[in-house]
């Protein structure tokens, strides 16, 4: 089964003066179409760095990151152009302007690529897919934490990426909202053939995932392959969510 995204023996360190802090230490990971992987780690375990390396936002010091079988370094201009197209990143911060409407925020990645009218139409559809179409005309500041998270997921999905990366999408949510978000992401993986790589702040959120992992001191311990019942051969025909 081909992987959408592969991290192979990747390592990453940060330096503070002469002192090295190893954040990722020989981490290998495959994310396949149709599966959701949830990684848990304590605060400061390196979860965000793992996601940034996976999304191409930061290069690894060692190892290879490949997307759809190709080393991202061989791409021009690198993985950066994949972010937003083939890779969707679920933001947690939302728009800079608190007054921006939810539909405008979701449409942002499309502006300049399609007409404004088409961008808003797709944004509305994306909001509908995550179940918050009725928030479309609400300003960001008036949304609840749960609605904001769902709008951010719609924002990441609007360009129909193959892979979705989410950094603690369930943080600050109550238990029912957490379950809703996890179920939504799992449904996106299973029904749409999306690969989902996310970190979670607590372990119960891992129960919706197809594979789970624990990150500490830069080392990733990942569960063995699932039975693969939801994993889709790449390239697979995407189905609507």
């Amino acid at each position, binding site marked *: 089964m081909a992987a959408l995204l592969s991290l192979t023996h990747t390592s990453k360190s940060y330096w503070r003066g002469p*002192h090295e802090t190893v954040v990722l230490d020989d981490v290998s990971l495959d994310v396949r179409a149709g599966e959701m992987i949830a990684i848990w780690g304590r605060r400061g375990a390196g979860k965000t760095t793992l996601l940034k390396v996976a999304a191409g936002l930061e290069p690894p010091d060692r190892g290879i990151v490949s997307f759809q079988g190709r080393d991202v370094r061989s791409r021009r201009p690198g993985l950066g152009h994949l972010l937003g197209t083939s890779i969707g990143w679920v933001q947690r911060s939302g728009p800079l302007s608190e007054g921006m409407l939810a539909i405008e925020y979701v449409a942002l990645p499309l502006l300049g690529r399609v007409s404004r009218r088409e961008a808003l139409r797709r944004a509305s559809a994306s909001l509908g897919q995550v179940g918050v179409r009725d928030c479309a005309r609400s300003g960001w500041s008036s949304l609840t934490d749960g609605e904001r998270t769902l709008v951010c997921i719609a924002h990441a999905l609007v360009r129909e990426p193959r892979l979705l990366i989410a950094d603690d999408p369930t943080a600050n949510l109550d238990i029912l909202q957490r379950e809703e978000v996890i179920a939504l992401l799992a449904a996106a993986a299973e029904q749409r053939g999306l690969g989902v790589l996310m970190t979670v702040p607590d372990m119960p959120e891992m129960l919706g995932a197809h*594979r789970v992992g624990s990150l500490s*001191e830069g080392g990733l*311990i990942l569960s063995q392959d699932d039975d693969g019942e939801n994993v889709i051969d790449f390239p697979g025909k995407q189905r609507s969510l």
Partner: protein
Amino acid sequence: MASKHAVLGLVIERPDYGYGLYKRLADRCAPWAWSRPAVYAALEELSSAKLVSADESLYPAGSGGHARTIYSATPGGVSFFDEWMFGPSALEAPRRELELKLVMARPHELPRLVEMSLAQEQDCVERIAALAREARRAPGGSQHAWGEVAARLVRDTEVKQLRLRVEWLQEARSTMKLFLHQHGTAPVRPHVLGAGPHEPFPSLVHPPE
């Protein structure tokens, strides 16, 4: 896990008589609170299995002239203990068996215990993955039968217990690595904050003019 492993570990360290072993066990492994009869039962079991040998002819100093049965480990006992030390630890008794191994370990055994903590964390992760498979197979929606709700509660409880265990394993591994680093036996640097040289805090008391 049985007290025989702890008693055997102490006998390997130093031959001793029953009550002496009980006192050492109480000092060393206080959290387990083993009783004297449990220690004698363990010695009997170890003797029957020829893992320790009993010598009644010795009159050790401080015995007041009384004969005492001194227990020593046999080569078979040492092998048995080593097999236990580096064998898989039961998940069902949270942490306890691995805790005991940590208490009984000699420093040169720590690198292997670091590896074993990784193996046990892998077991925890696999168990969470199995629970996740169960959860995905469970019917969705808000209209659950009580049996399904109860199953979900049980799964959540187990995951929370697994989280505690994983956190403890990570903590133990980090501590072992730090110990090995500080004693110059580990090539790997521990992943700890403030690993750099410390500078003294400035005094808050003004020096006398």
